[in-house]
């Protein structure tokens, strides 16, 4: 973590419907509850029809701009591989990446005009040798619900951010759908394990 006076920038990206809005809200709530000033910004609108989604989350003692300046994201958190790579220019030198290996074909790919790009994980690794790349969808399906993939990733994120674990668990409980609290907590735990010690 950084000295208290600095701002931490987390950029969360994915595809509409993947739950980026939920994961970013949980992170924002955790940061706020920890007593930090927080700003979060995303663009709604056409996202629900399968477009790209990005959410900027910034926290620290003082935060002005709601947008992360290009090249200053401390953490890039991506729930879809190609989207994670798209936003790579936002990551600062030495920034960390948490990426799901899930691939969702964009229209030009699923219609057979272009291949899904190759070598994306390598590209990510070149920027962050300690890259946390996990098959979040597979993990989620293994737990019994594909929809918790984002929470698996969030669990991994919790390992590299310096917030109280109980706070994370409380916010996950509070903010996921009531009927799915148990499985989400499991998913969160699984994400923590996958992020390594």
């Amino acid at each position, binding site marked *: 973590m950084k000295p208290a006076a600095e701002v931490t920038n987390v950029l969360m990206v994915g595809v509409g419907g993947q739950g980026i809005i939920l994961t970013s809200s949980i992170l924002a709530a955790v940061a706020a509850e920890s007593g930090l000033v927080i700003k979060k910004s995303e663009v709604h*609108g*056409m996202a629900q*029809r399968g477009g*790209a989604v990005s959410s900027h989350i910034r926290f620290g003692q003082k935060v*002005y701009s709601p*947008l992360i300046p290009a090249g200053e994201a401390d953490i890039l958190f991506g729930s879809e591989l190609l989207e994670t790579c798209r936003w790579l220019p936002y990551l600062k030198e030495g920034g960390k990446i948490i990426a799901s290996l899930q691939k969702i074909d964009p229209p030009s*790919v699923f*219609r057979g005009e272009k291949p899904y790009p190759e070598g994306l994980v390598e590209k990510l690794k070149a920027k962050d040798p300690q890259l946390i790349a996990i098959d979040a969808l597979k993990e989620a399906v293994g737990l019994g619900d594909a929809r918790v993939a984002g929470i698996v990733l969030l669990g991994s994120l919790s390992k590299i951010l310096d917030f109280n674990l109980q706070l994370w668990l409380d916010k996950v409980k509070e903010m996921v759908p009531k009927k799915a609290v148990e499985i989400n907590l499991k998913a969160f735990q699984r994400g923590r394990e996958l992020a390594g010690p």
Partner: protein
Amino acid sequence: MRKLLSGNEAVARGAWEAGVEVATAYPGTPSTEIVQALAGYPEVNAQWSVNEKVALEVASGAGYAGARSLCAMKHVGLNVASDPLFTLSYTGIQGGLVVVTADDPNLYSSQNEQDNRHYARAAKLPMLEPSDSDEARRFSKTAFALSEKYDCPVLLRLTTRISHGESLTELEERKMGPVLKKFDRNPSKYVMLPGYARPRHPLVEERMNRLKEFAETFPENRIEMGDKKIGIVSSGVAYQYGREAFPDASFLKLGMVWPLPEKLVKKFAGQVEKLFVVEELDPFLEDNLRMMGLDPVGKEVFPLCGELSPELVKQGVSGKGSVREINFDQAIPQRPPILCPGCPHRGVFHILKKLKVFTCGDIGCYTLAAQPPLNALHTCLCMGAGIGQSFGMEKALGKDARVVAVIGDSTFYHSGITALADIVYNRGKGTVLILDNLTTAMTGRQGHPGSGLDIYGQPSPVVELEKLVLGLGVKRVTVVNPYDLPLLEKVIQEEMEADEPSVIIARSACVLIPQFKGVRKKPVRVDREKCDGCKICLQLMCPALTWEAKTEPGKKRKGYARIDPLQCTGCEICLQVCNEAAICREDQ
């Protein structure tokens, strides 16, 4: 107590704290959540209005009767509501009236990038502009107080980054204003006959002078003195970008962007070495500073178009090319929004494309049909414009011109009705397709007069589309199932050939609303033996329908279509498009 709220939620909270009783809106990104949030407060009577003009009229009626009311809209919505707005400036109100306009720099979900600060000046009304959620809440409250003190509507301007940005917000209790609810029978104030309106105008001018005085001491217009080398005049989210880029510079932070505090501005200008105006879109503040005789640096170094950012501010002020070029990898394919799997609009555009007609379009999810490979919608101007424009084309090109108008249900109620009356009255012969998916899909599925649901999700009386259209004098009205492609094609052909105006209502629920349950069917599948890899079905741009490249010895095809059973709704549009009968129902 502090809570993380979006700017929109914070405006709603502030209005609630100020004792707002009536809230109206037509949904529009990025403003939709304001009145949606107000509907969640039991003390507030909220509604979706048919359009922004009516929304403002309802809110102002409540204001005339002494209730505090709020009306919210996106920037272009204020164009629609501007007619009542300009004269409300003359009549004033009794109960406070706050008009929220949410501008959309960078056009995340809009057809233009207009800067609604100009409306404040043109309509001679005060305008507040918050720069984070807590200011949004506070300014919303202040706006009600100002509205009552100065007897006029108050404009509250947001932009996408404020509306949809979240930050910590204080929460306070609700306090009702002192206003009494009653009829105010005062024709010289509320009946804007020329003879009554004429003497109101000087009162408006005099009010603006008083507001100018107020602006000088308004605590939300403040000088934040820092390093005197750089002085920045700014407001809204642009202020935050300025602060981010130059945390130690001097700022004149304007909470009220109209009218401007001339003395304060000049005082600030006199204290700093170099004066900058940092604002998004138009040089609104800049031009006004020039009229004060000042010579700030503004749009010569900052862009006129699109959003600002801390980097752009830094570059403009420092005069150096310090913006870090964002080199997005060109090899990474774009991911544009597209129509949902099973969307009832898809087949209509497939047929329109097949018939090679010119389609005057409108605003909604279906505007996406303009993109390749559908390429089946050829205009989109503003809410409801397609009907009138198709009539104009008919006039220009003759009645045999193959042109149709396509409009969504919500958009038709918003602004299509009058245009259709115009066609009937003026002996037009056009065909109007109303794509009725029973909701306002684009903005997140809000109710409208034909949907049978109000803002609370409760059953509401229905303004029936067929009867409405018949009542307008259209004799040829056909309702079709938009998934039945042969029928659609036949009906569109016939109606285009008819020698009188016609309306085709293509009705089926948006796949994202509960009524779609009865429409959803088992997914279809591709018979790999029959699929010859022609890719015709892929022109439909259905996310469930994908291509699998595969060459096999002895086969000409280079691959085949594949259907994702998890996404497919079984709408069978692709099945009807395939010439090889390679797409079949599960049971076949």
